[in-house]
């Protein structure tokens, strides 16, 4: 019983430290950000069929690790964010990602990165609907 509790409590923490992951809470969901991942909160991202366009656009960026998720991108329409997996040691161009999201018909609310593996960097954006 005690051994089981120790595993439940400490194993995730040990694993997170080992893989340089950070956890944030995004729209009532705990989201793990790995060192080579970018998480983008997208306003109005609820339309499943429209998520295909966003996913395709983000997948086409340089340095996306297409071996992970769906061609390197996971879109969560229930909690309104996208996760982009980067090739290890190579960063995607965040500005290109933001442009791609705008072209996909959405606005970016917040970008979360974990470049150092030790701290989450947060960038907030103004929203311009048109």
């Amino acid at each position, binding site marked *: 019983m005690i051994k089981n509790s120790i595993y439940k409590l400490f194993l995730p923490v040990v694993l997170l430290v080992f893989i340089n992951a950070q956890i944030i809470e995004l729209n009532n969901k705990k989201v793990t950000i790995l060192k080579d991942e970018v998480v983008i909160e997208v306003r109005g991202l609820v*339309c499943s069929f429209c998520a*295909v366009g*966003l996913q395709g656009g983000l997948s086409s960026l340089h340095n996306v690790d297409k071996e992970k998720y769906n061609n390197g991108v996971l879109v969560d329409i229930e909690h309104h964010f996208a996760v982009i997996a980067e090739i290890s040691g190579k960063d995607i161009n965040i500005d290109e990602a933001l442009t791609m999201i705008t072209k996909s018909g959405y606005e970016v609310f917040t970008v979360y990165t974990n470049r150092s593996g030790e701290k989450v960097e947060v960038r907030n954006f103004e929203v311009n609907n048109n």
Partner: protein
Amino acid sequence: MDMAPRWSGGYGFQIRYESYGSDLTVNARDINASFFHKTYFLEGVYTWDRSARITLKLPYQIIEKSDSDIFSKNNSFGDLIIAVPLKKYNNYKSYTQNIGVTPQVKIPLDEKMTNVTGPFSGGVSLSYSSESFSFYQLYDIFSWFYNYKDPLLGLDINLGIHPYHDNATNKGLFVIWDATCRWENSYTIIQTGPAFMLYNQNIMMRAELKLPVIETGGKNKLSKGVYMNIGLGFVF
């Protein structure tokens, strides 16, 4: 849902089959006549950016009529419909909405139809739709004006829920309640029924069935009967 493709340069096409018709009048009388209308549509859409897109609908119709044991069947292209949906979007934290204005034209491709409706028909629709993860609603009021025929006024209402979605595979299901009202000259119809939309990545299938709950017209006006629609669409 009605919003795809909303990305710049997005395009798609759909093949669709619809049918309606009956051998009873709007008052459910048998007058030894029938009218059945089946149409195959090839539809396309191109999106410049989310605020402006163009759609084309090319119908191929099969009309079967009978009147006092005289039966006729006519296969022909219907009216080509070209529309330019213009939308104003607003994205919020947990939902998206848009209002739209859609000017549209019908161009008859068959001489027989030109004689009925005229060489050119114009229409306009005003719409509002909003979608959250679990709920979808669409209200669309539309009108058509013809050269040789009375105008038509219509209203579409779609209320839907989203009972299943898988983020990892982008597969899911929408269940929608669809109601359509149309008024033209002395004819009024209100049809309603369920619609189901299944999607898997960029492929979508929609099936709907509507029954006339109110239908009024001349005493010998044949009912439109059960309306069925099934479509398979792809976006890129």
